[in-house]
Protein backbone atom coordinates (compact mmCIF):
# COMPACT_ATOMS: atom_id res chain seq x y z
CA UNK A 1 0.00 0.00 0.00
CA UNK A 2 1.74 3.13 -1.19
CA UNK A 3 1.25 6.44 0.55
CA UNK A 4 2.57 9.78 -0.61
CA UNK A 5 4.38 11.81 2.05
CA UNK A 6 3.49 15.46 1.45
CA UNK A 7 6.56 16.96 3.16
CA UNK A 8 9.18 14.39 2.21
CA UNK A 9 7.81 14.57 -1.37
CA UNK A 10 7.99 10.88 -2.11
CA UNK A 11 5.80 7.85 -1.78
CA UNK A 12 6.55 5.05 0.64
CA UNK A 13 5.05 1.70 1.40
CA UNK A 14 2.82 2.38 4.41
CA UNK A 15 3.15 -1.17 5.67
CA UNK A 16 6.94 -0.99 5.76
CA UNK A 17 6.82 2.22 7.80
CA UNK A 18 4.20 0.84 10.20
CA UNK A 19 6.25 -2.34 10.67
CA UNK A 20 9.39 -0.27 11.17
CA UNK A 21 7.57 1.75 13.83
CA UNK A 22 6.25 -1.48 15.35
CA UNK A 23 9.68 -3.05 15.58
CA UNK A 24 11.18 0.03 17.15
CA UNK A 25 8.17 0.31 19.48
CA UNK A 26 8.61 -3.28 20.57
CA UNK A 27 12.23 -2.63 21.51
CA UNK A 28 11.37 0.66 23.17
CA UNK A 29 8.68 -1.00 25.27
CA UNK A 30 11.06 -3.75 26.26
CA UNK A 31 14.02 -1.57 27.16
CA UNK A 32 12.29 1.62 28.23
CA UNK A 33 14.05 3.75 25.61
CA UNK A 34 12.35 5.97 23.04
CA UNK A 35 13.86 4.18 20.09
CA UNK A 36 14.67 7.31 18.15
CA UNK A 37 18.25 6.12 17.81
CA UNK A 38 16.92 3.31 15.63
CA UNK A 39 14.12 5.13 13.76
CA UNK A 40 16.20 7.96 12.30
CA UNK A 41 18.94 5.79 10.75
CA UNK A 42 16.38 3.25 9.49
CA UNK A 43 14.29 5.97 7.84
CA UNK A 44 17.41 7.40 6.19
CA UNK A 45 18.30 3.94 4.89
CA UNK A 46 14.77 3.68 3.48
CA UNK A 47 15.35 6.85 1.48
CA UNK A 48 13.69 9.57 3.56
CA UNK A 49 15.72 12.81 3.55
CA UNK A 50 17.76 13.02 6.82
CA UNK A 51 16.13 16.27 8.00
CA UNK A 52 12.60 14.92 7.55
CA UNK A 53 13.65 11.67 9.23
CA UNK A 54 15.06 13.42 12.31
CA UNK A 55 12.09 15.81 12.57
CA UNK A 56 9.44 13.11 12.24
CA UNK A 57 11.19 10.57 14.45
CA UNK A 58 11.04 13.05 17.34
CA UNK A 59 7.24 12.95 17.29
CA UNK A 60 7.30 9.17 17.29
CA UNK A 61 9.36 9.24 20.47
CA UNK A 62 6.79 11.59 22.05
CA UNK A 63 4.07 9.04 21.34
CA UNK A 64 6.16 6.16 22.64
CA UNK A 65 6.92 7.94 25.90
CA UNK A 66 3.36 9.11 26.69
CA UNK A 67 1.93 5.78 27.83
CA UNK A 68 5.14 4.90 29.67
CA UNK A 69 5.26 8.23 31.46
CA UNK A 70 1.59 7.89 32.46
CA UNK A 71 2.13 4.40 33.85
CA UNK A 72 5.08 5.61 35.91
CA UNK A 73 3.13 8.66 37.07
CA UNK A 74 0.34 6.47 38.46
CA UNK A 75 2.90 4.44 40.37
CA UNK A 76 4.56 7.59 41.70
CA UNK A 77 7.70 6.84 39.73
CA UNK A 78 8.33 10.39 38.56
CA UNK A 79 10.26 13.04 40.42
CA UNK A 80 8.25 15.98 39.07
CA UNK A 81 10.55 18.51 40.70
CA UNK A 82 13.62 17.03 39.03
CA UNK A 83 11.68 16.49 35.80
CA UNK A 84 10.64 20.14 35.53
CA UNK A 85 14.24 21.31 35.97
CA UNK A 86 15.36 18.89 33.26
CA UNK A 87 12.55 19.88 30.91
CA UNK A 88 13.51 23.54 31.33
CA UNK A 89 17.08 22.66 30.35
CA UNK A 90 15.79 20.45 27.55
CA UNK A 91 13.68 23.15 25.94
CA UNK A 92 16.63 25.54 26.00
CA UNK A 93 18.78 22.80 24.51
CA UNK A 94 16.23 22.17 21.75
CA UNK A 95 16.25 25.83 20.75
CA UNK A 96 20.05 25.97 20.82
CA UNK A 97 20.13 22.71 18.87
CA UNK A 98 18.01 24.24 16.12
CA UNK A 99 20.59 27.00 15.73
CA UNK A 100 23.44 24.49 15.55
CA UNK A 101 21.40 22.43 13.07
CA UNK A 102 21.09 25.40 10.74
CA UNK A 103 24.78 26.24 10.94
CA UNK A 104 25.76 22.67 10.16
CA UNK A 105 23.24 22.46 7.35
CA UNK A 106 24.70 25.56 5.74
CA UNK A 107 28.23 24.18 5.97
CA UNK A 108 27.15 20.85 4.49
CA UNK A 109 28.51 18.82 7.36
CA UNK A 110 25.23 17.91 9.08
CA UNK A 111 25.26 14.28 7.92
CA UNK A 112 28.82 13.71 9.08
CA UNK A 113 28.21 15.38 12.43
CA UNK A 114 25.05 13.29 12.98
CA UNK A 115 26.92 10.10 12.14
CA UNK A 116 29.95 10.96 14.29
CA UNK A 117 27.73 11.91 17.24
CA UNK A 118 25.89 8.62 16.90
CA UNK A 119 29.11 6.63 16.85
CA UNK A 120 30.60 8.45 19.85
CA UNK A 121 27.46 8.41 21.97
CA UNK A 122 26.21 4.96 21.20
CA UNK A 123 29.70 3.49 21.24
CA UNK A 124 30.67 4.82 24.64
CA UNK A 125 27.30 4.25 26.29
CA UNK A 126 26.91 0.82 24.73
CA UNK A 127 30.36 -0.18 25.99
CA UNK A 128 29.56 1.12 29.50
CA UNK A 129 26.24 -0.72 29.59
CA UNK A 130 27.79 -3.90 28.26
CA UNK A 131 30.49 -3.90 30.93
CA UNK A 132 28.00 -3.19 33.66
CA UNK A 133 25.55 -5.87 32.47
CA UNK A 134 28.29 -8.48 32.13
CA UNK A 135 29.57 -7.71 35.64
CA UNK A 136 26.09 -8.05 37.14
CA UNK A 137 25.40 -11.28 35.28
CA UNK A 138 28.82 -12.64 36.27
CA UNK A 139 28.15 -11.79 39.90
CA UNK A 140 24.71 -13.37 39.70
CA UNK A 141 26.10 -16.57 38.20
CA UNK A 142 28.76 -16.77 40.91
CA UNK A 143 26.07 -16.30 43.52
CA UNK A 144 27.71 -13.20 44.92
CA UNK A 145 25.52 -10.28 45.87
CA UNK A 146 26.02 -7.40 43.42
CA UNK A 147 28.65 -4.93 44.52
CA UNK A 148 27.06 -2.02 46.34
CA UNK A 149 27.69 1.29 44.60
CA UNK A 150 30.16 3.37 46.50
CA UNK A 151 29.40 6.90 45.39
CA UNK A 152 26.00 8.48 45.37
CA UNK A 153 26.85 11.08 42.78
CA UNK A 154 29.77 12.22 40.74
CA UNK A 155 32.23 14.62 42.46
CA UNK A 156 31.76 17.14 39.62
CA UNK A 157 28.06 17.34 40.48
CA UNK A 158 28.85 17.88 44.13
CA UNK A 159 31.14 20.77 43.19
CA UNK A 160 28.34 22.80 41.57
CA UNK A 161 27.01 25.72 43.61
CA UNK A 162 23.44 26.19 44.89
CA UNK A 163 21.79 23.10 46.30
CA UNK A 164 18.17 21.99 46.20
CA UNK A 165 16.49 19.06 47.81
CA UNK A 166 14.95 16.52 45.40
CA UNK A 167 12.97 14.36 47.79
CA UNK A 168 11.77 11.62 45.49
CA UNK A 169 15.22 11.14 43.99
CA UNK A 170 16.74 11.20 47.47
CA UNK A 171 19.20 13.89 46.46
CA UNK A 172 20.51 17.17 47.77
CA UNK A 173 22.33 18.57 44.76
CA UNK A 174 22.64 21.68 42.63
CA UNK A 175 19.76 22.09 40.13
CA UNK A 176 22.41 23.11 37.60
CA UNK A 177 23.39 19.47 37.14
CA UNK A 178 19.98 18.23 35.88
CA UNK A 179 19.58 21.52 33.98
CA UNK A 180 22.82 20.93 32.05
CA UNK A 181 21.90 17.29 31.51
CA UNK A 182 18.50 18.36 30.17
CA UNK A 183 20.15 20.94 27.91
CA UNK A 184 22.49 18.35 26.41
CA UNK A 185 19.71 15.86 25.70
CA UNK A 186 17.48 18.60 24.27
CA UNK A 187 20.20 19.45 21.81
CA UNK A 188 20.63 15.78 20.89
CA UNK A 189 16.89 15.47 20.32
CA UNK A 190 16.87 18.20 17.69
CA UNK A 191 20.12 17.10 16.05
CA UNK A 192 19.60 13.37 16.01
CA UNK A 193 15.84 12.90 16.41
CA UNK A 194 16.47 10.75 19.45
CA UNK A 195 14.71 11.06 22.78
CA UNK A 196 18.02 10.76 24.58
CA UNK A 197 16.80 8.11 27.00
CA UNK A 198 19.88 6.01 26.39
CA UNK A 199 22.01 8.97 27.51
CA UNK A 200 19.70 10.20 30.25
CA UNK A 201 19.16 6.99 32.16
CA UNK A 202 22.84 6.14 32.69
CA UNK A 203 23.65 9.81 33.38
CA UNK A 204 20.89 10.03 35.99
CA UNK A 205 22.06 6.82 37.61
CA UNK A 206 25.80 7.30 37.56
CA UNK A 207 26.32 11.06 37.39
CA UNK A 208 23.45 12.32 39.52
CA UNK A 209 23.09 9.18 41.57
CA UNK A 210 19.29 9.27 41.53
CA UNK A 211 17.25 6.61 43.22
CA UNK A 212 16.51 3.83 40.71
CA UNK A 213 12.76 3.87 41.39
CA UNK A 214 12.33 7.26 39.75
CA UNK A 215 15.03 7.16 37.05
CA UNK A 216 13.01 5.63 34.20
CA UNK A 217 9.81 7.54 34.98
CA UNK A 218 11.58 10.88 35.24
CA UNK A 219 13.56 10.30 32.06
CA UNK A 220 10.32 9.45 30.21
CA UNK A 221 8.73 12.61 31.62
CA UNK A 222 11.63 14.72 30.36
CA UNK A 223 11.69 12.95 26.97
CA UNK A 224 7.96 13.49 26.51
CA UNK A 225 8.22 17.25 26.89
CA UNK A 226 11.55 17.72 25.17
CA UNK A 227 10.62 15.70 22.06
CA UNK A 228 7.40 17.72 21.87
CA UNK A 229 9.50 20.90 22.04
CA UNK A 230 11.84 19.50 19.39
CA UNK A 231 8.89 18.75 17.08
CA UNK A 232 7.70 22.32 17.54
CA UNK A 233 11.19 23.68 16.86
CA UNK A 234 11.46 21.64 13.68
CA UNK A 235 7.96 22.69 12.57
CA UNK A 236 8.92 26.34 13.02
CA UNK A 237 12.47 26.30 11.63
CA UNK A 238 13.21 23.44 9.22
CA UNK A 239 9.50 22.82 8.42
CA UNK A 240 10.46 19.20 7.93
CA UNK A 241 7.90 17.46 10.16
CA UNK A 242 5.96 15.08 7.94
CA UNK A 243 2.71 14.48 9.76
CA UNK A 244 1.76 11.54 7.53
CA UNK A 245 5.10 9.85 8.16
CA UNK A 246 4.80 10.55 11.90
CA UNK A 247 1.27 9.11 12.02
CA UNK A 248 2.39 5.90 10.28
CA UNK A 249 5.36 5.52 12.62
CA UNK A 250 3.18 6.23 15.66
CA UNK A 251 0.58 3.69 14.60
CA UNK A 252 3.22 0.97 14.62
CA UNK A 253 5.28 2.11 17.54
CA UNK A 254 2.54 2.66 20.15
CA UNK A 255 1.18 -0.81 19.44
CA UNK A 256 4.67 -2.32 19.50
CA UNK A 257 5.52 -0.54 22.74
CA UNK A 258 2.58 -2.13 24.56
CA UNK A 259 3.59 -5.61 23.40
CA UNK A 260 7.20 -4.90 24.30
CA UNK A 261 6.30 -3.73 27.81
CA UNK A 262 4.49 -7.02 28.43
CA UNK A 263 7.39 -9.07 27.08
CA UNK A 264 9.79 -7.18 29.33
CA UNK A 265 7.92 -8.28 32.46
CA UNK A 266 8.72 -11.91 31.66
CA UNK A 267 12.43 -11.36 31.23
CA UNK A 268 15.24 -10.90 33.69
CA UNK A 269 16.29 -7.26 33.74
CA UNK A 270 20.01 -8.12 33.69
CA UNK A 271 19.71 -9.98 30.40
CA UNK A 272 17.45 -7.28 29.03
CA UNK A 273 20.15 -4.72 29.73
CA UNK A 274 22.75 -6.94 28.09
CA UNK A 275 20.58 -7.18 24.97
CA UNK A 276 20.10 -3.41 24.88
CA UNK A 277 23.85 -2.87 25.23
CA UNK A 278 24.50 -5.26 22.35
CA UNK A 279 21.93 -3.53 20.17
CA UNK A 280 23.28 -0.04 20.92
CA UNK A 281 26.81 -1.23 20.10
CA UNK A 282 25.62 -2.81 16.85
CA UNK A 283 24.05 0.45 15.69
CA UNK A 284 27.27 2.29 16.64
CA UNK A 285 29.42 -0.16 14.68
CA UNK A 286 27.12 0.07 11.67
CA UNK A 287 27.35 3.87 11.71
CA UNK A 288 31.14 3.72 12.10
CA UNK A 289 31.42 1.43 9.08
CA UNK A 290 29.18 3.82 7.18
CA UNK A 291 31.64 6.62 7.89
CA UNK A 292 34.74 4.65 7.01
CA UNK A 293 33.53 2.75 3.97
CA UNK A 294 33.33 4.37 0.60
CA UNK A 295 29.72 5.57 0.44
CA UNK A 296 27.40 4.54 -2.39
CA UNK A 297 26.85 8.15 -3.24
CA UNK A 298 29.92 10.33 -3.57
CA UNK A 299 27.78 13.21 -4.76
CA UNK A 300 24.79 14.64 -2.95
CA UNK A 301 22.33 17.20 -4.21
CA UNK A 302 20.71 19.87 -2.10
CA UNK A 303 18.15 22.37 -3.33
CA UNK A 304 19.29 25.88 -2.56
Amino acid at each position, binding site marked *: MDVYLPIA*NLSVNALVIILLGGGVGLLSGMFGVGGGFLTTPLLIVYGIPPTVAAASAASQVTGAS*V*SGAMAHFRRGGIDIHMGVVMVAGGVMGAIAGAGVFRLLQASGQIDTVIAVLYVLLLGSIGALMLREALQTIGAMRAGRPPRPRKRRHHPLVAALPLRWRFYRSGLYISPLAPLILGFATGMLTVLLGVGGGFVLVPAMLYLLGMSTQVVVGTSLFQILFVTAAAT*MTHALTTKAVDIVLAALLL*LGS*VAGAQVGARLAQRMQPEYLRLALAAMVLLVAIRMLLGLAWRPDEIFTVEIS
Partner: protein
Amino acid sequence: MRPLGVLVLALAPLLLGAAKPVLVPDVSQREIEIAYSFTGARLLLFGAILYPRGRAPDAAKPTDIVVVVKGPAQSILVREKEKVAGIWVNAERTRYRSAPSFYAIASSRPIADIVDEKTRAIYELGLSSLQLSPASGAVAEEQARFDAGLVDLKTRNRLYYEDPDAVEITDGVLYRANVAIPARVPVGRFTAETFLIQDGRVLAAAVREITIRKSGFERFVARSAERSSFIYGLVAVALSVAFGWGAGAIARRF
Protein backbone atom coordinates in the same frame (compact mmCIF):
# COMPACT_ATOMS: atom_id res chain seq x y z
CA MET B 1 0.72 42.24 -62.69
CA ARG B 2 0.48 43.88 -59.33
CA PRO B 3 -2.27 41.77 -57.81
CA LEU B 4 -0.42 38.66 -58.88
CA GLY B 5 2.78 39.87 -57.18
CA VAL B 6 0.90 40.49 -53.92
CA LEU B 7 -0.61 37.04 -54.12
CA VAL B 8 2.78 35.41 -54.66
CA LEU B 9 4.24 37.35 -51.73
CA ALA B 10 1.34 36.46 -49.48
CA LEU B 11 1.54 32.81 -50.37
CA ALA B 12 5.33 32.57 -50.21
CA PRO B 13 5.58 31.73 -46.52
CA LEU B 14 2.82 29.17 -46.83
CA LEU B 15 4.49 27.59 -49.82
CA LEU B 16 7.83 27.55 -48.06
CA GLY B 17 6.29 26.15 -44.93
CA ALA B 18 4.42 23.61 -46.92
CA ALA B 19 7.67 22.13 -48.13
CA LYS B 20 8.32 20.84 -44.62
CA PRO B 21 6.21 18.43 -42.60
CA VAL B 22 4.23 19.91 -39.71
CA LEU B 23 3.85 18.52 -36.21
CA VAL B 24 0.55 18.23 -34.37
CA PRO B 25 1.42 17.11 -30.83
CA ASP B 26 -0.60 16.47 -27.69
CA VAL B 27 -0.23 14.98 -24.23
CA SER B 28 -2.56 12.65 -22.37
CA GLN B 29 -2.69 14.84 -19.28
CA ARG B 30 -2.24 18.57 -18.94
CA GLU B 31 -2.43 18.33 -15.17
CA ILE B 32 -1.13 15.66 -12.86
CA GLU B 33 -2.52 15.74 -9.35
CA ILE B 34 -0.57 14.22 -6.50
CA ALA B 35 -2.93 12.51 -4.07
CA TYR B 36 -2.31 10.13 -1.18
CA SER B 37 -1.59 7.07 -3.31
CA PHE B 38 0.57 8.81 -5.91
CA THR B 39 3.39 6.55 -7.02
CA GLY B 40 4.29 8.39 -10.18
CA ALA B 41 2.54 8.91 -13.46
CA ARG B 42 2.76 7.69 -17.01
CA LEU B 43 2.54 10.43 -19.53
CA LEU B 44 1.45 9.58 -23.04
CA LEU B 45 2.74 11.98 -25.68
CA PHE B 46 1.19 11.48 -29.07
CA GLY B 47 0.44 13.31 -32.30
CA ALA B 48 0.63 13.33 -36.04
CA ILE B 49 3.14 14.37 -38.65
CA LEU B 50 1.42 16.28 -41.47
CA TYR B 51 3.21 16.18 -44.80
CA PRO B 52 2.82 18.99 -47.31
CA ARG B 53 -0.02 18.60 -49.81
CA GLY B 54 -1.11 15.30 -48.39
CA ARG B 55 2.05 13.66 -49.68
CA ALA B 56 2.74 10.20 -48.36
CA PRO B 57 5.87 9.87 -46.19
CA ASP B 58 8.98 9.25 -48.18
CA ALA B 59 10.31 5.82 -47.32
CA ALA B 60 13.81 6.75 -48.41
CA LYS B 61 13.99 9.69 -46.03
CA PRO B 62 12.60 8.49 -42.69
CA THR B 63 11.61 11.08 -40.11
CA ASP B 64 12.37 10.72 -36.45
CA ILE B 65 10.53 11.99 -33.41
CA VAL B 66 12.30 13.01 -30.21
CA VAL B 67 10.32 13.86 -27.09
CA VAL B 68 11.87 15.69 -24.15
CA VAL B 69 10.05 16.09 -20.85
CA LYS B 70 11.64 18.53 -18.42
CA GLY B 71 10.78 19.34 -14.83
CA PRO B 72 11.01 22.80 -13.28
CA ALA B 73 14.57 24.12 -13.12
CA GLN B 74 16.11 24.19 -9.66
CA SER B 75 19.03 26.02 -8.21
CA ILE B 76 21.03 23.26 -6.57
CA LEU B 77 24.19 22.67 -4.61
CA VAL B 78 26.14 19.50 -5.41
CA ARG B 79 28.60 18.26 -2.83
CA GLU B 80 31.32 15.73 -3.32
CA LYS B 81 32.47 13.43 -0.52
CA GLU B 82 36.13 12.83 0.10
CA LYS B 83 38.00 10.69 2.57
CA VAL B 84 39.47 12.94 5.25
CA ALA B 85 41.27 11.38 8.23
CA GLY B 86 39.66 8.02 7.63
CA ILE B 87 36.07 9.13 7.26
CA TRP B 88 34.05 10.28 4.29
CA VAL B 89 32.99 13.91 4.56
CA ASN B 90 31.58 16.47 2.17
CA ALA B 91 34.49 18.39 0.73
CA GLU B 92 34.14 20.25 -2.56
CA ARG B 93 30.94 21.70 -3.86
CA THR B 94 29.49 23.35 -6.95
CA ARG B 95 26.36 25.38 -7.38
CA TYR B 96 24.13 25.08 -10.41
CA ARG B 97 21.80 27.96 -11.13
CA SER B 98 19.21 26.04 -13.06
CA ALA B 99 19.43 22.31 -13.46
CA PRO B 100 16.24 20.55 -14.55
CA SER B 101 14.70 18.63 -11.66
CA PHE B 102 13.52 16.02 -14.12
CA TYR B 103 14.71 15.20 -17.63
CA ALA B 104 13.46 12.38 -19.82
CA ILE B 105 14.25 11.99 -23.47
CA ALA B 106 12.43 9.48 -25.62
CA SER B 107 13.23 8.94 -29.26
CA SER B 108 12.44 6.61 -32.13
CA ARG B 109 16.11 5.66 -32.56
CA PRO B 110 19.20 6.22 -30.40
CA ILE B 111 19.66 9.97 -30.27
CA ALA B 112 23.29 9.79 -31.46
CA ASP B 113 22.10 8.18 -34.73
CA ILE B 114 19.50 10.89 -35.35
CA VAL B 115 21.40 14.15 -34.94
CA ASP B 116 25.00 15.23 -34.67
CA GLU B 117 26.65 16.59 -31.55
CA LYS B 118 26.19 20.23 -32.51
CA THR B 119 22.43 19.92 -32.94
CA ARG B 120 22.21 17.91 -29.75
CA ALA B 121 23.90 20.72 -27.88
CA ILE B 122 21.62 23.38 -29.41
CA TYR B 123 18.39 21.62 -28.51
CA GLU B 124 19.72 19.96 -25.33
CA LEU B 125 19.00 16.50 -26.68
CA GLY B 126 20.45 13.77 -24.49
CA LEU B 127 22.00 13.61 -21.05
CA SER B 128 25.48 14.41 -22.36
CA SER B 129 24.19 17.64 -23.94
CA LEU B 130 22.34 19.06 -20.93
CA GLN B 131 23.00 22.72 -20.16
CA LEU B 132 23.42 22.62 -16.41
CA SER B 133 24.52 26.26 -16.01
CA PRO B 134 27.09 26.03 -13.22
CA ALA B 135 27.27 29.18 -11.13
CA SER B 136 30.75 28.87 -9.69
CA GLY B 137 33.70 29.39 -11.98
CA ALA B 138 35.40 26.06 -11.46
CA VAL B 139 38.11 24.47 -13.59
CA ALA B 140 36.62 22.75 -16.64
CA GLU B 141 37.90 19.36 -15.57
CA GLU B 142 36.40 19.63 -12.10
CA GLN B 143 33.18 20.97 -13.57
CA ALA B 144 32.93 17.95 -15.85
CA ARG B 145 33.40 15.66 -12.85
CA PHE B 146 30.58 17.37 -10.97
CA ASP B 147 28.32 17.33 -14.07
CA ALA B 148 28.91 13.61 -14.49
CA GLY B 149 28.29 12.99 -10.79
CA LEU B 150 25.03 14.92 -10.84
CA VAL B 151 23.74 13.21 -13.99
CA ASP B 152 24.74 9.81 -12.62
CA LEU B 153 22.98 10.41 -9.30
CA LYS B 154 19.82 11.68 -10.99
CA THR B 155 19.89 8.79 -13.46
CA ARG B 156 19.99 6.23 -10.69
CA ASN B 157 17.04 7.96 -9.01
CA ARG B 158 15.18 7.70 -12.33
CA LEU B 159 14.94 11.47 -12.44
CA TYR B 160 17.08 11.71 -15.58
CA TYR B 161 16.87 9.11 -18.27
CA GLU B 162 17.18 8.36 -21.94
CA ASP B 163 14.85 5.92 -23.62
CA PRO B 164 16.07 5.41 -27.19
CA ASP B 165 13.13 3.39 -28.50
CA ALA B 166 10.18 4.69 -26.54
CA VAL B 167 8.71 6.56 -29.51
CA GLU B 168 6.63 4.45 -31.86
CA ILE B 169 5.87 5.83 -35.30
CA THR B 170 2.97 4.25 -37.16
CA ASP B 171 3.11 4.41 -40.95
CA GLY B 172 5.38 7.41 -40.71
CA VAL B 173 2.40 9.56 -39.70
CA LEU B 174 1.26 8.88 -36.15
CA TYR B 175 3.59 8.76 -33.20
CA ARG B 176 3.23 7.92 -29.54
CA ALA B 177 5.61 7.82 -26.60
CA ASN B 178 5.27 6.80 -22.99
CA VAL B 179 7.22 8.74 -20.40
CA ALA B 180 7.28 7.59 -16.78
CA ILE B 181 7.34 10.30 -14.13
CA PRO B 182 8.47 8.99 -10.72
CA ALA B 183 6.85 10.01 -7.42
CA ARG B 184 9.99 11.85 -6.34
CA VAL B 185 9.59 14.72 -8.80
CA PRO B 186 9.02 18.20 -7.42
CA VAL B 187 5.74 19.92 -8.11
CA GLY B 188 5.58 22.67 -10.69
CA ARG B 189 5.43 23.30 -14.40
CA PHE B 190 6.80 20.61 -16.68
CA THR B 191 7.38 21.01 -20.39
CA ALA B 192 7.02 18.35 -23.06
CA GLU B 193 8.93 19.29 -26.19
CA THR B 194 8.48 17.29 -29.39
CA PHE B 195 11.01 17.50 -32.21
CA LEU B 196 10.53 16.31 -35.73
CA ILE B 197 13.89 15.43 -37.25
CA GLN B 198 14.82 14.44 -40.75
CA ASP B 199 18.33 14.09 -42.20
CA GLY B 200 19.85 15.30 -38.96
CA ARG B 201 17.91 18.57 -39.12
CA VAL B 202 15.16 19.68 -36.77
CA LEU B 203 12.21 20.41 -39.05
CA ALA B 204 9.60 21.28 -36.48
CA ALA B 205 9.31 21.60 -32.74
CA ALA B 206 6.35 22.06 -30.45
CA VAL B 207 5.98 22.54 -26.70
CA ARG B 208 3.16 21.52 -24.40
CA GLU B 209 3.00 22.32 -20.72
CA ILE B 210 2.02 19.95 -17.96
CA THR B 211 1.37 21.07 -14.41
CA ILE B 212 2.09 18.73 -11.52
CA ARG B 213 0.62 19.75 -8.22
CA LYS B 214 -0.41 18.34 -4.90
CA SER B 215 -4.12 18.07 -4.43
CA GLY B 216 -6.59 17.63 -1.60
CA PHE B 217 -5.13 16.53 1.71
CA GLU B 218 -1.50 16.51 0.51
CA ARG B 219 -1.80 20.07 -0.70
CA PHE B 220 -3.43 21.10 2.58
CA VAL B 221 -0.68 19.48 4.68
CA ALA B 222 2.18 20.93 2.65
CA ARG B 223 0.59 24.35 2.73
CA SER B 224 -0.13 24.27 6.47
CA ALA B 225 3.44 23.20 7.24
CA GLU B 226 4.68 26.16 5.24
CA ARG B 227 2.19 28.87 6.24
CA SER B 228 0.89 28.05 9.71
CA SER B 229 3.88 26.21 11.10
CA PHE B 230 3.00 26.87 14.73
CA ILE B 231 -0.43 25.26 14.51
CA TYR B 232 1.02 22.49 12.35
CA GLY B 233 3.61 21.76 15.05
CA LEU B 234 0.94 21.76 17.75
CA VAL B 235 -1.19 19.34 15.74
CA ALA B 236 1.82 17.04 15.24
CA VAL B 237 2.52 17.04 18.99
CA ALA B 238 -1.16 16.55 19.87
CA LEU B 239 -1.35 13.68 17.41
CA SER B 240 1.59 11.88 18.96
CA VAL B 241 0.29 12.40 22.51
CA ALA B 242 -3.16 11.16 21.46
CA PHE B 243 -1.67 8.06 19.80
CA GLY B 244 0.45 7.23 22.83
CA TRP B 245 -2.34 7.86 25.31
CA GLY B 246 -4.86 5.93 23.22
CA ALA B 247 -2.64 2.88 22.93
CA GLY B 248 -1.99 2.97 26.67
CA ALA B 249 -5.68 3.25 27.44
CA ILE B 250 -6.55 0.35 25.13
CA ALA B 251 -3.76 -1.83 26.47
CA ARG B 252 -4.89 -1.34 30.08
CA ARG B 253 -8.26 -2.92 29.29
CA PHE B 254 -6.69 -6.23 28.34
